[in-house]
């Protein structure tokens, strides 16, 4: 098992790193604003692609959902499902489409159970992906509120109420 695979099985470590990175990016808001979206995004895109690519097999959807999905990138799911597994998971938890690969959502669920900060976020409903954010830096999309550009009609407060969890 490679180093990064082992890392993926320590979602707690990853969620802390994620939280810290997000806080740093947010703290530096004034700097990004001065640079402007285009330049800041161009600066972040490649490092983000390489870093998150190595650790999460990130597909650069530009609308990072990692902490909602057990610090596991749901875009590796061939159906790009962001709210849970399809009904076609094979015996032993393998993917319907690619029988050699574990279903992403089997891993998402297992890992979310080991998380302490964002573990319950798996119960939140994720809005349809904004396809315009594709191949852009998710951190800069967050900093510039681009990831808030979800469909008008979508209500962000949906998710399971607490007694259901």
């Amino acid at each position, binding site marked *: 098992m490679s180093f990064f695979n082992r890392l993926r099985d320590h979602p707690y470590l990853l969620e802390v790193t994620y939280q810290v990175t997000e806080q740093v990016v947010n703290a530096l808001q004034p700097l990004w604003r001065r640079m402007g979206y285009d330049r800041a995004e161009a600066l972040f895109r490649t490092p983000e692609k390489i870093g998150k690519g190595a650790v999460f097999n990130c597909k650069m959807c530009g609308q990072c959902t990692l902490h909602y999905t057990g610090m596991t990138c749901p875009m590796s799911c*061939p*159906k*790009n*499902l*962001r*709210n*849970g*597994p*399809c*009904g*076609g*998971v*094979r*015996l*032993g*938890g393998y993917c*319907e*489409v690619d029988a050699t690969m574990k*279903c992403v*959502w*089997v891993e998402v*669920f*297992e890992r979310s159970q080991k998380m302490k900060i964002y573990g319950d976020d*798996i*119960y939140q*409903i*994720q*809005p*349809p*992906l904004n*396809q315009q954010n594709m191949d852009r830096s998710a951190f800069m999309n967050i900093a510039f509120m681009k990831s808030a550009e979800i*469909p*008008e*009609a*979508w*209500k962000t407060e*949906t*998710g*399971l109420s607490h007694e*259901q969890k």
Partner: protein
Amino acid sequence: MNKNRTNGRFESALRSGKFVVAAEISPPDSANPQDVLKAANILGPYADALNVTDGSGANCHISSVATCTILSNAGYEVIFQMSCRDRNRIAMQGELLGASALGLYNVLCITGDDVTTGDHPQAKRVFDMDSIQLIQTARIMRDDGIFLSGRKLSAKPTFFLGGADNPFVEPFEFRPYRLAKKIEAGAEFFQSQYCFDVGRLKSHMQKVCDLGLHEKSFILIGVGPLRSEKTAEFMRTKVPGVYIPDEIVERMRKTPSEKKREEGKKICAEIIQQIKEIKGVAGIHMMAYKQEESGAEILEMVGLTEKKKIE
């Protein structure tokens, strides 16, 4: 539980508390409406609703919405299935409006089998939205009278929204929560994948009831006859999401060939009898593709043959 919005036969039957029967119809490969009606002939009269698949197994057929319209004009109550595999959000919202305008208010929103399982593996898979997002989109259109973009509709659609459930595949523990998410999004009924493992279903339903989900939705369990151990083997290896335990395949293998059909029906009837006893189950969903006669005979064996069609 919400109020009866559609006053349709399916929703009303569920709300009446009786054990409901839905039956699956596979749209034919034909442009002749008579062929569509033929497909519904045998099981139609016994079903509270006919569930019309949308390119199931990613194979090409006459469209679900057209099949539904033909059947509904002939007096059947139908459930329009809509999968996320082939359309983006623009096409889906348009078709949802169209369905409601045609009087097709029961809508089952599903992810859909992958293109690689069907007869056009070279096709582009769309999956612009997933099933939960589709359910929520339909609910927003119905309740708020707007498109996802926020643009207003001049007349709101009517829907009774459903989703799929598969208690028989991993991640087992998450499956009840997936139902909860679908209910949160707007689903009010569920239809499950084929049940051949009643034990697994029981533990799933236990959790569903613990979460109180059976009080917020109606859950129909998928059933269907096996023809032989070969079909069982085919289904569990080639049809996405179907789990058949070894004991059942073994039971079919041990049965002499001339009795296999009977045995397959018997297994199905036994499973239905057990399902009827499980708390939280609202009915069954009969899937008997190309064995509609067997399907009807099974309903007879378990005493679910009250005639339902109103002309």
